[in-house]
């Protein structure tokens, strides 16, 4: 009977993921854009609903329609008008739109932190919390039943919209070829507005339902919705029914059933193990299963190679790149030399309270350089760079603490571990570009974060692992200034490495790969080897940067950063600053580092700023 109960509960929980997944699929189908801001919009609408119900005490019959029919769709209309229509006009490439949605996402997060702070609230119920009792002890909450019915109704309506109505055909036409649709008497702006309103409306509904009677805080809540990515990917971003099935069965029922499986217990035999490993397994299943599904779906489903994969970063990268290249040749070596000298002398001019921010800046510059290497030089989108950095930091701290390896040796070991992670990710992504490459890296990031970093056994849970600062021949780099200079030396080495990636034949091959896979192949390059190489090299740099970040804070702690939000944030920052050049990474890290300076007291930093400086410097 317990299994029936679990299945019923699973179906109800899964329904909401199905709804979220459907919204993502719908947005993609109806706008051609994978909306990374989906979770952020869901969160904003959930907060608005909470505000109206719990703060302003509006009645349900007013607040619910406003949240579901006005706020959510309204956000969609607004986004279409101010963000996506101008992009469309400019003929922006897929990665550019992707970055735009990431930007909107960060904006939503920042807005929520600003208005509602990071305090955990109790989301307002939209349906009564009572439950129905079926024979025996199978119970189903009214709210769960509501979600289930709502999801099914929405699924049927959307399906009818797409296959039975003329507006459905118009939507598909606009996504396919916007200009030609206009020539066919379709008002493309109106259609896009409807599409965005629908997509964001669904996001809002997901948010309100997910928050109904549950904790609500910007950070974790948004993460919940990110789990819906796996549903959308399983549906290959096109099939609404598959999205529903995946949400209900995989995320709902499977997770619910797994929660009761005891890995120490061998089925049908009565044998029971109870040593460390089974505990480890049991604690793993608590981690989110969606990460697992996402990884498996992205790795196994070869058909994804074709869907939406034709996009390239060319427009984005070469534009920023062209400008940068010219700027660099003008200034020659003077500017880097000046910046370098200023960096070395900096500790003499600032006090010890500000120095930690300089330390963070240098460490960030290294990790940002890794993004420049892979996205700027080779045109590959990676959305897990902070996780890679964290992995390097984690391994380095582990071998230092557990095996007593000196820190100076542990740092390259961490870098190599990150390299392995990068190559392991690059391998399944060999044939992918654009959106699905980004999603693959995102999946691996989610996976590593929830199965390694969050795990008590591996990464020390909430307390984290101590990250010692290095020393050499009895000389310690522990003091603020000496650690800072040590960082500068490492940064110099990494920049040198990055420079070498760009020069000579290697640089030309990478540039060819950036512009087009086909072009690169046609000049007789085995793309796979180079792709793996650049994944590895960039991950090495990220891993080393991660080690320094952890050592700066003196602790590796998965809770303080190294997660997907940080990854997305870094990616956006680097793109905006100009991904084509190493200078771009330096500039952006400086502004990010100093940003964490003023935002130290603002709770906003907990979500998107990776490293808060340790006061122990």
């Amino acid at each position: 009977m317990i299994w029936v109960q679990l299945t019923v509960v699973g179906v109800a929980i899964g329904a909401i993921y199905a709804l979220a997944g459907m919204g993502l699929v719908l947005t993609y189908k109806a706008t051609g854009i994978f909306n990374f801001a989906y979770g952020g919009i869901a969160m904003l609408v959930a907060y608005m609903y909470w505000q109206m119900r719990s703060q302003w005490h509006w009645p349900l019959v007013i607040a619910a329609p406003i949240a579901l029919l006005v706020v959510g769709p309204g956000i969609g209309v607004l986004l279409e008008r101010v963000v996506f229509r101008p992009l469309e006009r400019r003929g922006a490439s897929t990665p550019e739109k992707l970055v735009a949605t990431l930007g909107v996402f960060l904006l939503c997060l920042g807005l929520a932190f600003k208005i509602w702070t990071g305090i955990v609230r109790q989301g307002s119920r939209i349906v009564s919390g009572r439950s129905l009792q079926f024979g025996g002890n199978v119970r189903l909450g009214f709210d769960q039943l509501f979600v289930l019915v709502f999801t099914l109704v929405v699924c049927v309506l959307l399906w009818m919209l797409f296959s039975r109505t003329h507006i459905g055909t118009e939507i598909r036409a606009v996504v396919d070829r916007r200009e030609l649709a206009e020539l066919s008497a379709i008002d493309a702006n109106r259609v896009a507005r409807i599409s965005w309103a629908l997509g964001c409306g669904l996001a809002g509904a997901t948010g309100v339902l997910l928050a109904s009677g549950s904790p609500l805080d910007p950070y974790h809540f948004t993460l919940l919705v990110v789990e819906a990515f796996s549903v959308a990917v399983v549906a290959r971003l096109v099939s609404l029914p598959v999205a529903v099935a995946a949400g209900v069965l995989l995320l709902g029922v499977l997770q619910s059933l797994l929660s009761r499986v005891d890995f120490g217990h061998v089925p049908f035999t009565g044998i029971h193990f109870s040593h460390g490993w089974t505990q480890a397994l049991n604690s793993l299943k608590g981690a989110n299963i969606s990460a697992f599904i996402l990884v498996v779906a992205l790795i196994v489903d070869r058909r994804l190679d074709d869907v939406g994969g034709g996009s390239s970063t060319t427009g984005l990268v070469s534009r920023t790149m062209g400008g940068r290249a010219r700027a660099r040749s003008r200034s020659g070596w003077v500017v880097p030399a000046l910046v370098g000298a200023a960096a070395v002398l900096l500790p003499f001019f600032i006090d010890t309270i500000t120095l930690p921010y300089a330390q963070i800046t240098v460490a960030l510059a290294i990790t940002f350089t890794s993004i420049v290497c892979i996205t700027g030089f080779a045109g590959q989108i990676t959305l897990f760079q902070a996780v890679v950095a964290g992995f390097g930091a984690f391994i380095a701290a582990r071998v230092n603490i557990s095996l007593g390896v000196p820190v100076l040796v542990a740092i390259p070991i961490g870098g190599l571990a990150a390299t392995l992670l990068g190559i392991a990710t690059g391998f399944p992504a060999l044939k992918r570009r654009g959106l699905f490459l980004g999603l693959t890296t995102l999946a691996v990031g989610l996976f590593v974060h929830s199965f390694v970093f969050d795990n008590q056994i591996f990464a020390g849970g909430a307390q984290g692992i101590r990250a010692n600062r290095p020393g050499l021949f009895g000389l310690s780099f522990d003091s603020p200034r000496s650690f800072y200079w040590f960082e500068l030396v490492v940064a110099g080495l990494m920049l040198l490495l990055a420079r070498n990636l760009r020069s000579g034949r290697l640089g030309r091959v990478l540039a060819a790969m950036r512009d087009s896979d086909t072009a690169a192949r046609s000049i007789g390059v085995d793309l796979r080897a180079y792709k793996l190489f650049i994944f590895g090299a960039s991950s090495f740099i990220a891993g080393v940067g991660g080690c320094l970040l952890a050592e700066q804070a003196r602790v590796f702690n998965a809770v303080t950063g190294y997660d997907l939000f940080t990854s997305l944030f870094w990616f956006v920052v680097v793109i905006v600053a100009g991904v084509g050049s190493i200078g771009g990474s330096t500039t952006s890290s400086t502004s990010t580092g100093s940003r964490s300076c003023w935002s130290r007291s603002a709770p906003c930093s907990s979500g998107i700023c990776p490293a808060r400086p340790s006061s122990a410097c």
Partner: protein
Amino acid sequence: MPAALLEVEDLSVAYGRISALDGVDLVVPDGSVVALLGPNGAGKSTLLKAVAGLVPPIAGRVVLAGESLEGVPAHCRADLGVCLIPEGRGIFPSLTVADNLDVALSSHDEGMRRVVDYFPVLGERRAQLAGTLSGGEQQMLALARAVGAQPRLLMADELSLGLAPLLVRTIAETLERVHEEESRTILLVEQYATLALRLADLVYILNRGRLVWAGEPDELRASKVLVESYLGG
């Protein structure tokens, strides 16, 4: 002389700082076939796009049946009966053939019957994705979409591009039939000058964004200089 359906007056278009059209005047009489010729980069496609409302002019105006189209967006012009088959393939590759026609024929039931009448091939392939049609079939579909919409002014930009001569003839015949049976007004941009000259009542030649010649096909054929310098012999 029949009334003018389309008048283009002193039209200038620029892409950023590059001027593509410079003070072009052009008239398309109602019920006629007009050919617009010129070398690559002359601005022919730009002119059609400006008429369809896809690119905004920096000066001059476009007048349809006596009414200025200034500020009228592309989709409204299509509603008014201005139909452009753009350069390349004028179809939605990820929609089925039936949906492709559906999009064009939303408000014209009559159109559908005609289309199947003119293009029997498409009837057989209704459920196929348009992107998987052969190049010739795709161009047929593009033409079918345009004819089905029953436009007052049908503009076609290099319909024959990349097609085998046999197919070019089929397309020319279809255009001719559309013109004769439905007395549609047609503005053609063509590289196949012979085809264009056979259909056209009136010919304009553009070069580097300026109108360099206007007249009847026979005059053009007679002028060696013109043929050599603009039509490549």
